[in-house]
């Protein structure tokens, strides 16, 4: 395992939405998918994963349905709802704006001031 980064507050929801937007996943699958797409760079506290999933479900951003897992066990699968898709788009855009602004700010050299 390489270096891992602490999650910024509020970013877990965004990552979950991104993870389930690619393919319906169960809770453990969401964890693995986030680790995979962040190339193991992000440490997800497993305990806060489920409350986050439930909150998103309650707010109708993701929908849950029981299905069969790869090894034939009953598991709860989450999919993105239309509202969730909108939210993901907004948050991604917002994040990109923020990140580029901060990056630009941090890369400022003394000559540019």
């Amino acid at each position: 395992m390489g270096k891992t980064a602490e999650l910024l507050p509020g970013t877990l929801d965004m990552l979950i939405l991104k993870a389930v937007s690619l393919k319906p996943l169960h809770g453990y699958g969401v964890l693995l998918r986030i680790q995979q797409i962040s190339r193991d760079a992000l440490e997800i506290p497993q305990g806060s994963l489920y409350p986050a999933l439930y909150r998103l479900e309650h707010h109708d951003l993701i929908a849950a349905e029981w299905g069969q897992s790869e090894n034939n066990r009953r598991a709860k699968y989450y999919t993105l709802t239309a509202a969730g898709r909108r939210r993901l788009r907004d948050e991604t855009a917002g994040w990109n704006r923020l990140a580029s602004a901060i990056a630009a700010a941090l890369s400022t050299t003394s000559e540019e001031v």
Partner: protein
Amino acid sequence: MFKRFRSLFRVLTRRREFEDGMSEELRFHFEQYTDDLVRSGVSPEKAARLARRELGSSINIKADCREAFGVHLFDEFRRQLSYAARLLRKTPGFTATALLTLAVCLGANLTIFAVIDSVLLRPLPFPEPDRLMTIFNTYPKAGVERDGSSLTNYYERRGHISAFTSLAIYRYGTEIIGEAGSTEREQTMRVSPDFFATLRLAPVIGRTFTEEETTSQTDHVAILSDTFWRQRYNADPNVIGRQIRVNSVPRTVIGVLPPAFHFLSSDARLFLPLASRAEDRTPLQRHAGGNVTQMIARLKPDATLTQAQSQIDAQNATLEADDPQAKMIADAGFRSIVVSLHADHVAAIRPTLLLLQAGAIALLLIGAVNLVNLLLVRASGRVKELAVRQALGASRGYVVSEVVVETTLLTLVGGLLGLAVGAGGIHLLRVLGADRLPLGSRIVFDARFALVALVAAIILGIVFAVPIAWFNLRRHLGNALQSESRGGTSGRAAQILRHSFIVSQIALAFMLLAGAGLLALSLQRAMAVSPGFQSDHILTGQILLPWADYPDAARLTFIESLTDKIGHLPGVLSVGVVNNVPFSGNTGKSAATVMGHVLRPGESPRGHYSYGVEGDYFRAMGFSLRAGRFLTAADSRRAERVCVVDEDFARYYWPNTSAIGQRLWDGSEQGKDSEAFTVVGVVGGVKQAGLTEDEAQGAIYYPYVFRIGDSVFVAVRTSLPPESLGLALQQAVRQIDPDIPVNDLRSMETRIVDSLVARRSPALLAGLFSGIALLLTAIGTYGVLSYAVAQRRREIGLRMALGAQPAQIRSQFLYLSLRLLAGGVILGVIGAWLSGQAMQAVLFHVPAFNLAILAGAVFVMALMSLVACLLPSQRAARISPMETLAE
């Protein structure tokens, strides 16, 4: 927002599934993670340990998940609910008292509210009911407050009052329906063609009456009510055109009304055109309303009552300008008044109902104060427990919500019981005659009722919670932990609060008691009024004679053979006939002109009760003869016109001379000399409309032929119990004509008793309310004194150890209860005086301030206080110093 409620609701309704799903999901995660760790080479034991650490406590995760859905609030609520229920179960005495108090107080309010709702609040069942008006003539200076409207009024106003879209008249009646041999009596209404249009409810089948159907030759049509159509014609859709015999004349059915059609309090099931002759509509008949014919009108959407009133006034002024009777009419203070139909219909009963609701609210206040006091006492018993819990971290919000849950649980259960009491109360009111009130048949126990109870219970629950929560949060923790544990006295503020509650309770109960006393005294005074005749042993009944079968002369023949037949029945002492017996419920006054009487300046012509009598009416009714002779059966057949007047009439017109031999005309004009009636007798004055009738208007009795009407009352004096004669009377009528029924068969005493129902029932209810109030106040006083004794056990024990006598201790508590009593009574007397003023409208010859009643109320309250404080003060006096100091 709505979606979130739906998702929460879904979880709450399938809670089991939610919890199971959560466990299964976490287990799946744990096992998958463990498997993955094992696959990557970790030993199974270590993998399980690692997974458990990474995931954290599943209890915490689940709690967080529940919170994400908002489910936790409901779990907390359920916990508080079961805690409250457990606490209430642990104190059955308190809980039972509280629930009973709530049930009775809420039940009483719901009952009265049901009546107020149906009589005063619920609009009449017509479109835009608030635009419906009624118009009546009044001649206040002639002693005639209300005289309906005349046919002439109708034909003159129709289309000429621009503030009204339409205007109609109607007349209540009773008709004999059906074929000879199987007739029935029906309540009917005779209405003008625009009656239904004015109400804006048209027949669902067929049509309404036309203008051509308003003469006696062309009015052979009828409209049926829905119930009549269903019962008589089995809801036959082809009923239009069928024949129905009304008063033995066939009529054609032309319409059926919708099921919702209910005109005011009328039970009419058959509607006929109000037919009249041209001479009934002339200006001469303008003031011949006589309270039989009533007018309704619908205001235009943009018109106001004031506009309508001024238009009517203006028209009256124009019309009276060329009226030969104009001066007399003006002297009588004539006006036509426009008022809301609904308000007018319930005007008489309104003050009584509002008074009763005020009484019920006072009762609820007493009950509520009682409960708050009991709850406060209870809360001070739990101060320590609460202090400990707050010290251990219970938030203020939690403490408050706990109180709210507890009080609301209490009031909701109480409200439920109150609903049952209310249902019983409505039943009681029916027994007391509530469905005879105007619109009283609309009184029902329905969902609205339950909703009101629910809302009231929740509001009460929250109101109760406020002082308790304040009490619980007010004290500092350390204080509470110390002071109460040492059995010291409770906070001064709380004590003052408790005592002022008791004082206000006593004051309210005192007001109720005094109010009930005033009503009872007023009833007693009304009952003590003599009706003016010997009312015992008289049976009376109404007989309707159809005009078609009994034209003028035939009526007299019928009556003569009837009195002859009844007179020969065993047990009958005398029998007579009159158009209208006293206390029959319908009275009308009409004018008479006394020969030689010139109106003094400022004097207005007077309306008098005028009757046609036949047979031995005066003896049958037990009238007293003051001078001359009674009328006899023969007077109807004699050429000479004679009449009898009552002493009020005689005193008014001939204060200094004998009335005998004086002459007068029936009607408001001097007639021909041959048409004048000679007074042959003076009888005692009689209460005609009711015992509480104050103004002696005077009465004239003519031989029956001169005062023929639609129906007659027969009055029979008997040596037997009067009701036992009912069947024989009906048979006697049937022997003459099998198609004529006898209605409204009641003894004269029953009529008098029934006439007092509007006074008796409120007095009974007020008595009931004040009885309950007294009981509640006793419970409240007892509770607070017992608490005071329990709290001061230690102090009392100490004083007794130092030599205080039990009698001193006892008198200390007696003194406390006396102080509370005195405070309450002083406030109560003021309140009783104010409420007595407000009650003047419903009182009969009783002033607002009646010393005997106030003294009686003081006595009863003092007795109650004494009883309530007896037990606690006795308990205080028996405290053993050894025991209390050793505690």
